[in-house]
């Protein structure tokens, strides 16, 4: 069941103002649209010579030539039109855009309020079953998607991707823009880019996802790297706010990640190309209250039923209660963030000793100048947790910091200031970490049975008010031993 996020009073006033403006503007725009019957009649257009190529195609529920976005997309290829305007309404379909003939295409809702232009996945049909994605664009450069809301899809809200699995091939997904998009309660991801170079997701919101609201998958290695920018985003009530497997050159900034299981998780996995995840930045974000216990029966979001895998008969699940988790990541900088109210770890970094090829070693990550715990009023259980693996991970300039200790290694070894000394003065240099941290704390936590009992080890407290946000708590809570 879909629910809208809360809006503050300012947002409501802005929406009202925009609505009034739109009410005045839309009739004029519709009458001017070149592809509507009224416009064609007014201009005396007919068949034959002199027929001009339209600059844009307009989609609407009533009175337009195109009543589905897909119809307009198909026509745009034939007519070489680069802009599709979608008027307010609910479009029950999954849109497919395939190939470079669509390079430079813009699909935009005509209303600045993204919630007015809905791509609805519920009851939407596609080839082979239910429609899987609100919009899936394959091998398209310079695609722009704006002012829309994709919800309830079997897979993803908005997906842009390169389809060629050959890691050395030409990059066929460059410089997309996703702006002012909403994505909610899609099964996998809200906004998803795979094997793309460059690109930006901005002023967008994602909630209710079984994986993450925003996901940047395997990014091709580039000699002159293009940055992928994620900014002015909000992610809440997701298993993960941001996730990026084997992503590179990602700059995540000026966004809010709250009420997720984990706020942000750059990670390295065997399953995608371009291991490891490297060279990203997480800066100037609000990362708070990521204590969403979606394992509880009353959670509106469900995650993978069988867990992430098994170790010795124990099921591994995602951790919860964590602000930032660098999982097998290298060369990430986490700086100037406001991190508070996460009941397990504010920030964490760890390796994956089970990775084939040992590509998921935590290396050269820096935690700099982060403001933790809102001056002691809304603390993280501990601000930093590290497993003691890898090398070059360091911590400098962070405010009000607490570090999770180990009896097997000193804090100087686990949490050195920058630059970190070489192993064994700090880190093991390998994917194997401090036993107490890696095999005790981490493994013990992610194999908690039942997984909702992860919450039993949290350090909880009431959250003081923060802006207009509301903490999310699934009730009833777990039955702790």
């Amino acid at each position: 069941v879909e629910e809208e996020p809360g809006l503050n009073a300012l947002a409501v006033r802005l929406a009202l103002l925009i609505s009034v403006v739109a009410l005045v503007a839309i009739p004029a725009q519709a009458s001017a649209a070149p592809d509507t019957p009224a416009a064609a009649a007014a201009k005396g257009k007919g068949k034959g010579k002199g027929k001009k190529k339209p600059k844009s195609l307009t989609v609407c529920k009533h009175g337009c030539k195109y009543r589905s976005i897909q119809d307009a997309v198909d026509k745009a290829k034939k007519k070489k039109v680069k802009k599709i305007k979608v008027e307010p309404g609910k479009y029950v379909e999954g849109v497919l855009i395939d190939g470079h003939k669509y390079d430079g295409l813009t699909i935009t809702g005509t209303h600045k309020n993204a919630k007015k232009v809905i791509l609805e996945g519920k009851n939407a049909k596609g080839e082979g079953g239910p429609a899987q994605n609100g919009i899936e664009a394959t091998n398209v450069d310079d695609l722009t998607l704006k002012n829309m809301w994709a919800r309830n899809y079997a897979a993803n809200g908005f997906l842009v991707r390169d389809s060629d699995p050959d890691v050395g091939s030409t990059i066929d997904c460059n410089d997309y823009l996703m702006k002012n998009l909403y994505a909610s309660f899609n099964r996998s991801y809200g906004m998803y880019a795979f094997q793309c170079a460059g690109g930006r997701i901005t002023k967008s919101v994602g909630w209710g996802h079984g994986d993450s609201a925003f996901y940047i998958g395997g990014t091709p290695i580039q000699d002159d790297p293009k940055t992928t920018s994620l900014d002015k985003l909000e992610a809440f009530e997701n298993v993960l706010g941001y996730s990026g497997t084997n992503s590179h050159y990602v700059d995540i900034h000026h966004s809010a990640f709250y009420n997720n299981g984990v706020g942000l998780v750059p990670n390295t996995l065997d399953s995608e190309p371009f291991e490891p995840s490297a060279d990203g930045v997480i800066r100037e974000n609000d990362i708070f209250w990521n204590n969403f216990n979606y394992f509880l029966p009353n959670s509106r979001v469900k995650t993978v039923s069988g867990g992430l895998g098994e170790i010795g008969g124990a099921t591994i699940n995602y951790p919860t209660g964590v602000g930032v988790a660098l999982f097998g990541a290298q060369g990430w900088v986490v700086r100037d963030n406001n991190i508070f109210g996460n009941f397990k770890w504010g920030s964490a970094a760890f390796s994956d000793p089970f990775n084939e090829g040992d590509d998921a070693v935590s290396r050269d990550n820096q935690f700099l100048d982060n403001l933790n715990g809102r001056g002691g009023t809304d603390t993280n259980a501990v601000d930093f947790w590290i497993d003691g693996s890898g090398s070059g991970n360091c911590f400098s300039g962070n405010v009000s910091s607490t570090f999770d200790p180990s009896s097997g290694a000193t804090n100087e070894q686990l949490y050195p200031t920058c630059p970190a000394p070489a192993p064994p003065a700090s880190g093991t240099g390998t994917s194997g970490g401090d036993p107490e941290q890696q095999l005790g704390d981490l493994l013990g936590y992610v194999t908690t049975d039942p997984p909702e009992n992860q919450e039993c080890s949290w350090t909880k407290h009431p959250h003081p008010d923060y802006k207009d946000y509301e903490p999310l708590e699934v009730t009833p809570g777990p039955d702790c031993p």
Partner: protein
Amino acid sequence: VSRRSAALGALLALIALGGSIAAVGVASMTAAKKKTPVVLVADDYFSPTSLKIKKKTKVKFKWSSNNINTHDVQLDKGPKGVKKGDFRSGSAATNYKFTPKFVKPGTYDLLCSLHPDVMQVEVKVKR
């Protein structure tokens, strides 16, 4: 350190053994129930990972209802003259089917292009 390595090795072996048993189980079950061969598309594996069929046979790729991840099926390599475009599904998570027909004899290497290193399936088509 050596004790921990041994423990990790044992755990890896357990995981590998578990995966093998699961794959065999699914393969035999689908073979018994369906005339059209079925390949399960799951997070993040195909099952079975190889099969032999007669020419002009369809294979049904069926997405698991438990998936959270998105997957597709694509032809990586096939017999000469076979078009890759004829073996390309959409990107899907659940409740999705893709049923290509294998007309030309030879070996078809298919994969999930979103998880190419861990999701591969070989289809051998006999004359």
